[in-house]
């Protein structure tokens, strides 16, 4: 098997909640105490993204999927673990060393109302990354490049002198995609790129992303909470819960045969057109806070199959016969 384009190894990310030293210290019961708290956003994630595929990361709010995306892009530095791009470790690069990777890896954000600079025309927005990453190009070449990407995302190149606010949400997202494509990236991280859009516009943007993948040979890391989109778009799916990957499988296999109890519940909750009534697996309780992680399997408190081992031992991702990798003691022991 060829080496993966992106290799995430043992990734952990914590966000400190407790502030400076003085804020941590308190005086209680006659003695000083120092208390440190952190949000455990990612707790040991290993993922590989292979060339040409679209790896979808799904999960509910707070599961750490966006943190994974941002850490891969280098927007956040990991607390522990490594990120490799095409065999080269990139999470510890400094200064100018990062630049080539900034060009090869681009990001599309959820909210096209926030991700475009309101004071720049579309032409400026699209020229800026090209000028920065390709200083060798002449003015004319830059303009040609902008024309080309605008056409490829279905925005009339004559609109270059307009500002972001003159466009609808769907058009803005097209422009954001054009900006990502302008520097000829190899790898695109898309963080909920269609969640803010209407249904008919979602289809347009999804088609655009798929076309771009075909014509430009792109690799995607696609973050979403919408499982119907995953089923359509993804090559493989990673399901996350409380900062851990609980199931990793080919899209088809995952939807045909979900193994992890959480994946099963998540899939059952998609409202389907053919349903006459809500028809879903009910989970007990709510997602625990990532400040105090549950011991053992992070899902044990809500899992109908949890036993003593689940409460104590953290399950590892283990391959099953169907090729699915599941982190669940019950699956491993054949109880499920």
């Amino acid at each position, binding site marked *: 098997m060829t080496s993966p384009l992106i290799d995430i190894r043992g990734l952990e990310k914590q966000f400190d909640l407790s502030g400076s030293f003085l804020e941590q210290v308190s005086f209680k019961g006659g003695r000083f105490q120092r208390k440190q708290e952190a949000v455990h956003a990612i707790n040991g994630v290993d993922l590989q993204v292979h060339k040409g595929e679209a790896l979808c990361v799904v999960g509910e709010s707070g599961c750490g999927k966006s943190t994974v995306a941002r850490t891969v892009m280098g927007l956040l530095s990991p607390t522990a673990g490594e990120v490799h791009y095409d065999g080269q470790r990139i999470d510890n690069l400094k200064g100018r060393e990062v630049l080539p990777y900034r060009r090869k890896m681009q990001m599309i954000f959820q909210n096209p109302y926030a991700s475009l600079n309101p004071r720049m025309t579309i032409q400026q927005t699209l020229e800026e990354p090209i000028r920065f990453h390709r200083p060798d190009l002449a003015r004319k070449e830059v303009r040609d490049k902008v024309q080309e990407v605008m056409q490829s995302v279905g925005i009339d190149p004559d609109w270059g002198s307009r500002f972001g606010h003159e466009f609808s949400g769907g058009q803005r997202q097209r422009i954001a995609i054009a900006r990502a494509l302008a520097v000829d990236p190899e790898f695109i991280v898309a963080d909920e790129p269609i969640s803010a859009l209407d249904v008919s516009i979602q289809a347009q943007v999804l088609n655009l992303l798929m076309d771009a993948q075909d014509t430009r040979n792109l690799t995607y890391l696609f973050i979403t909470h919408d499982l119907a989109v995953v089923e359509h778009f993804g090559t493989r799916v990673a399901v996350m819960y409380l900062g851990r990957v609980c199931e990793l499988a080919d899209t088809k296999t995952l939807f045909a045969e979900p193994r992890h109890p959480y994946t099963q519940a998540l899939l059952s909750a998609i409202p389907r*057109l053919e349903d006459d009534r809500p028809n879903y697996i009910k989970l007990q309780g709510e997602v625990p806070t990532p400040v105090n992680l549950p011991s053992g399997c992070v899902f044990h408190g809500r899992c109908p199959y949890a036993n003593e081992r689940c409460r104590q031992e953290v399950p590892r991702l283990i391959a099953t016969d169907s090729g699915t990798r599941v982190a669940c003691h019950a699956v491993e022991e054949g109880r499920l």
Partner: protein
Amino acid sequence: MKKTPLLEVKDLDVRFAVRGGDLTALRGISFSLDKGERLGLVGESGAGKSVAAFSILNLVARPGYIAGGQILFEGRDLAAMSERELRKIRGNRIAMIFQDPMMTLNPVLSIGTQMVEAIKAHRRISTKAARDIALDRLRKVQIPSPEKRLDQYPHELSGGMRQRVIIAVALLLDPEIIIADEPTTALDVTIQAEIMALLLELCEQDNVALMLITHDLGVVSQVTQRMLVMYSGRIIEQGPTREIINDAQHPYTQGLINALPQMGEPGARLFQIPGSMPSLKNVPTGCPFHPRCRFATDQCRQTMPEYVRSGNVDVACYEVSNLIEQEKHMQEAGS
């Protein structure tokens, strides 16, 4: 004789008075809701579904106003009612659930205080009795340890819990109708499924009519019996939910359904409707959908189509009415 529906909206027009003239937000909206019936209101942003919901309780904020039509609730016109009379109906006979629970709940009052206040605004009962009603409703929406919740503040609850509280508030005075405006859009899928199932169960239990506003066709098909599809301030198709989902007549409804990822072959291109919904400032002439429609003719560009009936579904589309005409001719020629 046909029995009168619980709520009947007739030819409702809502406009927004802005500089440079009125913008028409709703045009000729007519529909009815029977006791205990569940009706879905579907459309994309800007279609006017929330304005429709707000105008039923005469809650359209200025510069919006009801420019024409009637909203008959048990035979009385809400559009012509005084503010005082309306207040007796709002929250009491017709309750509303909004998308964002934090918009409905007061952050500085405990849940119990807010619930008691709502009851006492409509009924002359003791605080103790009101608290008992509040407690009962919290039990009904299956909130764990409801006694404790009464003394908690909104920020102490999770998003799903807050939406349950909102449903409990809506149920306080045993309303006949609940209008729910995107009640689960802000929630995660698993929570959404729970809240929807709960809402459906409660409505069925007490025979409460539900008007559910959503952009999610999956939710509509799970919860409602009839549905309206809105586009650019008009109802373009209405009828039994199952019939529309299985065999939509209007090209827009068809497009909306076919554009769903779950309808496409995995990995293949999705069906897409070109363009986007027109803004209120420049609604196209004739059928508002014609610039995006693959069947559009000159007739569509010039005049708005009337409703025609196909099966049990009312559709406003020339393509559909022409097809029905053709079929009629064929049958006549055949016989």
